[in-house]
């Protein structure tokens, strides 16, 4: 699974993950505090400037934004049908600016950096006994590790269906897929425990 991180040496790349996330949060708040067209339009220009300066070729940079922008646009058009036009435009500008900066953060921050930040954020929760901070990295690793196996399993189930002349239906496929996958949990958990990886837990 290819991540959305793109190697590079732009200014955004060099800023720490924490700073970028804090700015993103602050930006979210600020965008929703103002309804001023000019400010919001400037916001869009500024965030677009940042997003297109990180080193992505224009085509892929735009392709990444397409699904989200489409949703923003459709909702804005829907809003136009019922609301005064400036309300729809304000929403359009706000969300577009947010989208651009968020996409810039994603493209310039490596997965390991994100995981480090989340793990740090989770440490206080560890003291409350709610979770183990290191479990975040482990959980992410486990998912990326086993998604390909699950896809293989799905294909095997489909082939078995074909061999028996059964049509592929959610009920006939999802049940074995889920059971076979979850049955592995005990073995995987035993292997993890045997390596002493989660030492501070029961």
């Amino acid at each position, binding site marked *: 699974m290819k991540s959305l991180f793109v190697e590079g040496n732009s200014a955004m790349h060099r800023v720490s993950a924490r700073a970028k996330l804090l700015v993103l949060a602050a930006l979210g708040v600020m965008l*929703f505090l103002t309804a001023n067209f000019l400010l919001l339009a400037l916001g869009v220009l500024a965030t677009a400037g940042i997003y297109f300066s990180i080193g992505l070729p224009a085509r892929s940079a735009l392709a990444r934004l397409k699904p*989200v922008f489409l949703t923003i646009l459709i909702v804005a058009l829907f809003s136009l049908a019922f609301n005064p036009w400036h309300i729809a435009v304000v929403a359009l500008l706000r969300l577009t600016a947010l*989208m651009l900066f968020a996409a810039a953060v994603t493209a310039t921050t490596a*997965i390991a950096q994100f995981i480090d930040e989340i793990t740090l954020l989770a440490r206080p929760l560890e003291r409350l006994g709610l979770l183990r901070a290191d479990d975040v990295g482990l959980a*992410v690793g486990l998912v990326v590790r086993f*998604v390909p196996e699950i896809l293989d399993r799905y294909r095997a189930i489909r082939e078995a269906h074909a061999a028996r002349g059964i049509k592929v239906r959610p*009920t006939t496929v*999802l049940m074995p897929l889920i059971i076979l996958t*979850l049955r592995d949990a005990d073995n995987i958990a035993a292997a993890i425990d045997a390596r002493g990886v989660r030492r501070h837990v029961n």
Partner: protein
Amino acid sequence: MSTRDLVLSALFAAIIVALGILPPITLGFIPVPITAQSLGVMMAGVVLGARRGTIAVLIVLVLVAIGLPVLSGGRGGLAAFAAPTTGFLIGWVLAAFVTGYLSERLVKSEQSALAQTVGFFFAAMIGGIVVLYACGIVYLAFAAQLGLSKAFLGSMAFIPGDVVKAFVAALVGRAVMVGYPLLPVRS
């Protein structure tokens, strides 16, 4: 949380991710393919229960946030949270929790197959539709400045599809419970 619970949650998160990658599956009686990822969220609650189902969904959201394209269509990254429909995404967490909680309360192993399926269907409807749409509509109303009634109106079109998904989740949930019971019992 026990290692087994963590692994179960992570594996289900992987199933939800896989469902976003696999092509939609057609139901026999309706010629429309159902995109399975939101179905996966309902199934997380129905199969794993409230706690692990919620954690499975949280793991998926973490994967999206850190830049992995795990949402159906290859979407991912923080930009996915900038959409006006983000309420429907973050609402997955509450949806899985409520679906799981109701499943644990309502469905017992001594019940008939029909009773169990109905129980799961109810849980999936309340969690996967009522609660999820509440989250989605509220956020839509606020973030897109749509107003609650318009947001509600705009979201109605998707409900029939999700009712079908709740039904599928109930059938699959019941079948999984028979084959490999994992649902904690909550009285």
